[in-house]
């Protein structure tokens, strides 16, 4: 087992597992927020696995997840917006969730980029990283915005 796989394991147990437990318990809004976080972390685990197994083609999984993950979260926002916005979260929670959903992305994507051979793979990795950051920020914002906040 190399360092990348160890990192993937650590992220899985220290990041994804708590997020999964957040999805399994609590009120609906916390579950959806945790699900959004779990999507981002799972995509990062896929990137680490791709590097750890020396298989660039595994990054396709992270790509599909980065593209579809926010869609899954926005489905809840769209169909259950009344229930989700019944209570307004504290600003601290919003900030914490935004940071948790964005900060790990560069921490994983930059080292993986540095280790991968320069070329198409690097562009793909950066693209996935950008999608993850944009999707995660947007979903957290949409889920925590006050009721009637359409601009």
């Amino acid at each position, binding site marked *: *087992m190399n360092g990348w796989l160890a990192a993937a394991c650590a992220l899985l147990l220290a990041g994804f597992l708590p997020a999964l437990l957040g999805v399994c318990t609590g009120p609906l809004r916390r579950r959806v927020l945790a699900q959004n976080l*779990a999507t981002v972390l799972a995509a990062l685990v896929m990137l680490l*696995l791709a590097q750890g197994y020396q298989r660039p083609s*595994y990054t396709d999984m992270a790509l599909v997840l980065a593209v579809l993950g926010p*869609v899954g979260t926005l*489905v809840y926002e769209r*169909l*259950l917006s009344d229930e989700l916005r019944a209570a307004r979260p504290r600003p601290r929670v919003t900030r914490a969730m935004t940071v948790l959903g964005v900060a790990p992305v560069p921490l994983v994507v930059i080292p993986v980029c540095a280790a991968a051979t320069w070329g198409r793979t690097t562009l793909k990795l950066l693209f996935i990283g950008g999608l993850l950051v944009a999707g995660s920020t947007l979903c957290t914002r949409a889920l925590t915005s006050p009721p009637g906040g359409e601009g």
Partner: protein
Amino acid sequence: MAGELPVMAALLLVAVAGTAVVLARDPVRQSAVLAGLGLSLAVLFAVLQAPDVALSELAVGTAFTPLMVLLSVRKVRHNARRSERREEHE
């Protein structure tokens, strides 16, 4: 043995998520947990060296299944409310 650590971790996640899906009795909450199970399964498939299957599970589990369940819940609730109104009417 240490090489199998990712597989063991992913198996643990899948077992936890699968149990949680069954224990979540409210269908809306269950659909969120079901999406979590889909993610855990995708990670397990990735460490079992089956990226094709993981892609399949991701495509289906992240958006398609939750959307279907939530739409069904919406219709079912609508029908239940209507049925209550009808009973009150009679």
